[in-house]
């Protein structure tokens, strides 16, 4: 901050012109600890996109502001961060903790504070029901949609049917790893494949026994529902046991450069899910030029622009900004919107192909259209493969699993939650 801007700021503040149009977003991020690489990439992407938007004049003239707070991925510190950020800079209007633990910790607080929370690709899948969780948005795709899509992809790969096949679900033994079980079990029964569930104790740095078990079971496919260090260990152990990596299908938290690069050659041919199509897009070029060109880039290593986590962050940024736009359309352009209004914006997102083209992100993520019944807005995913150097999408089209089944499970689970909490499910205006 230069002297001039300080003086300018002081003058503005003194003259009562503090109502500089600003939209504040709370980012309880993590850049140290076991998941630092993911956190730095994801939040780096969000901030890069916000900087790009601000450089181009903001959202109809409203600047996006944000503040980070280090959570170390620890729920206790995450709650502290949330409490600190929610009143910062006149009040947060959106929060994205990128951690299931923290999201659960603040789940009950956000409706009271009227701050919408997004959970891009994690967290409670049943929060897709906006009647029970009006302030929670598992945007693009929840774990259940992903699991359904995985089964659909594997079925297509086997000529349309998985009857008589054997699939191993190798999972991180935590809430995260157990989340897809209802979907996988229902689909196993429905489609007639055998599901073998093998847990890995966190953090998952030792998997010799599990892979021995897998070798004995001789499955047709292995679903790797892993996280952090568990992924590269799984890939390397699979290689040591002679298990073909092409048969392993990772969850999207097991499908980043951070998971494959440390495994070296062992990762070649490994496939994983994603809700982004890897590649380059005009919006990324704009970020390189406008943001990094001005020295305002958030990533220390420019080479990571467009990496899986970074692109996920940029996608999150796009969704947030589009929600602000949608809310402004309804509640008045050129003015910052409140948390309640932004919630409306998130609930009425409509990012179709034309809008994606305007942003410069055609096909970078599936089209998103949300409503009160569907806070997810898409449920479509892609499968990507590691070619030894980079991720390549191997499914040209977006895959959508059994939506009806997912919807049924979402309704069942969220109704149970509403009954426990004595809530009356209803759409907010």
């Amino acid at each position, binding site marked *: 901050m230069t002297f001039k801007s300080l003086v300018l700021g002081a003058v503005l503040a003194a003259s009562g012109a503090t109502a500089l149009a600003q939209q504040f977003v709370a980012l309880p991020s993590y850049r140290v600890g076991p998941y630092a690489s993911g956190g730095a990439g994801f939040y780096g992407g969000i901030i890069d996109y916000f900087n790009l938007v601000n450089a181009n004049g903001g959202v109809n003239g409203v600047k996006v502001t944000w503040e980070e707070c*280090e959570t*170390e991925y*620890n729920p206790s510190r995450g709650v502290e961060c949330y409490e600190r950020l929610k*009143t910062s800079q006149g009040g947060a209007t959106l929060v994205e903790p990128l951690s299931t633990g923290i999201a*659960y910790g*603040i789940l009950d607080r956000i409706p009271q504070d009227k701050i919408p929370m997004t959970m891009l690709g994690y967290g409670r899948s049943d929060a897709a029901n906006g009647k029970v969780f009006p302030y929670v948005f598992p945007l693009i795709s929840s774990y259940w949609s992903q699991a359904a899509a995985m089964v659909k992809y594997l079925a297509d790969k086997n000529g349309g049917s998985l009857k008589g096949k054997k699939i191993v679900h190798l999972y991180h033994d935590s809430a995260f790893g*157990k989340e897809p079980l209802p979907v996988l079990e229902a689909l196993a029964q429905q489609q007639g494949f055998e599901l073998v569930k093998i847990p890995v104790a966190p953090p998952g740095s030792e998997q010799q026994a599990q892979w021995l078990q897998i070798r004995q079971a001789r499955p047709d496919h292995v679903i790797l529902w892993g996280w952090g260090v568990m992924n590269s260990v799984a890939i390397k152990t699979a290689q040591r046991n002679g298990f073909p990596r092409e048969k392993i299908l990772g969850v999207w938290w097991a499908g980043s450069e951070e998971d494959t690069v440390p495994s070296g050659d062992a990762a070649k041919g490994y496939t994983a899910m994603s809700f982004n199509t890897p590649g380059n897009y005009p919006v990324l070029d704009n970020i390189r030029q406008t943001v990094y060109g001005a020295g305002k880039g958030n990533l220390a290593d420019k080479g990571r622009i467009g990496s899986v986590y970074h692109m996920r962050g940029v996608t999150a940024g796009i969704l947030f900004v589009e929600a602000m736009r949608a809310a402004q359309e309804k509640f008045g352009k050129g003015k910052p919107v409140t948390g309640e209004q932004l919630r409306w914006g998130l609930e009425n997102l409509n990012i179709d192909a034309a809008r994606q083209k305007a942003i410069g992100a055609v096909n970078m993520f599936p089209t998103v259209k949300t409503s009160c019944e569907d806070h997810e807005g898409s449920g479509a995913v892609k499968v990507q493969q590691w070619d030894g150097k980079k991720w390549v999408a191997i499914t040209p089209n977006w895959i959508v699993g059994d939506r009806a089944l997912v919807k049924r499970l979402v309704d069942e689970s969220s109704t149970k939650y509403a009954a426990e*909490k004595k809530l009356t499910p209803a759409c907010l205006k």
Partner: protein
Amino acid sequence: MFYREAGQFKTTYEADGQILPIRQDRIALLATLTLAVLVLPFVATPYLLSAILIPFLIFALAALGLNILTGYAGQLSLGTAAFMAVGAFASWNFVYRFPGLPILVAFVLGGLCAAMVGIAFGLPSLRIRGFYLAASTLATQFFVVWCLTKIPALTGGSASGVITAQKIVILGYAFDTPQRKYVLVLLIVALMALLAKNMVRSNVGRSWMAVRDMDVAAEVIGIRLMRTKLLAFAVSSFYCGVAGALYAFAYLGTVEPEAYSLDLSFRILFMIIIGGVGSILGSFLGAAFIVLLPVGLNIVAHGLGLPTSVASNLELMVFGALIIFFLIVEPHGLARLWQIGKEKLRLWPFPH
């Protein structure tokens, strides 16, 4: 000068046996409590109450529990978080399975469940001691978390194993705002701290200390080792269990096994080492140090406008360096530092 005791005569045994023998201490404690109960809830921001003071009090209670076991009875333990988890899950289950059960009763029952687990895992202490015992209490940590992830009945059959804590309602009065939660936690912690202080001054506490100092000698003078050690485990686990229940109900709002990781056990161990082993005050000072310092450093780093990645790493480095510095300056912890300070103040301005 501030601690001059001139004129404070003790003429009765009661006066001689007070918890705080110096009048200044009594006044200070009363003032602190008055401030905490009557002023803070009204003037403090919700952020200060719900994000700083509540976790501080809860961790202080857990540290108190560990201090009873490690500081007073000399039994090393690494299973603190596991006892907290037992308390939290048991309380949740009592409220879940017996609707209408008063929540305070559920907390007490949760604490009692933790005490029973504590007794079971304290049994090895009769044969082994020191680091070997620490390793065996480590088993509690793994066993309890394993049970909670493996036995669906304990988590009410929830698919993901994460459950949301019920609302705290006492006699129809809902403790749902930061102010109310803070007052509830404060009262529970203050009451239990007073109980602990009196316990360690009584014959129970003296027998714990005798066992800590030399268990063979204690046995020779007629202290029953088994009873004393297991009592220490039970009381300590009870405290940790109640702290765990408060952590879930009054702070996090969720009950999940991962919140009670080995990491938490270590942090509580650091609290009593930094605060002062074998001191009630030390538990509070240590909890304050471990809870407040990272937050403070984070705010300072933010204020300086450092890039977030640098700030995050710097925070850890400064925190680590401060721990090492404090332990070199005063290996007996902050409580001892305070005690030395008090002695110096008594003599001030004369050096001796």
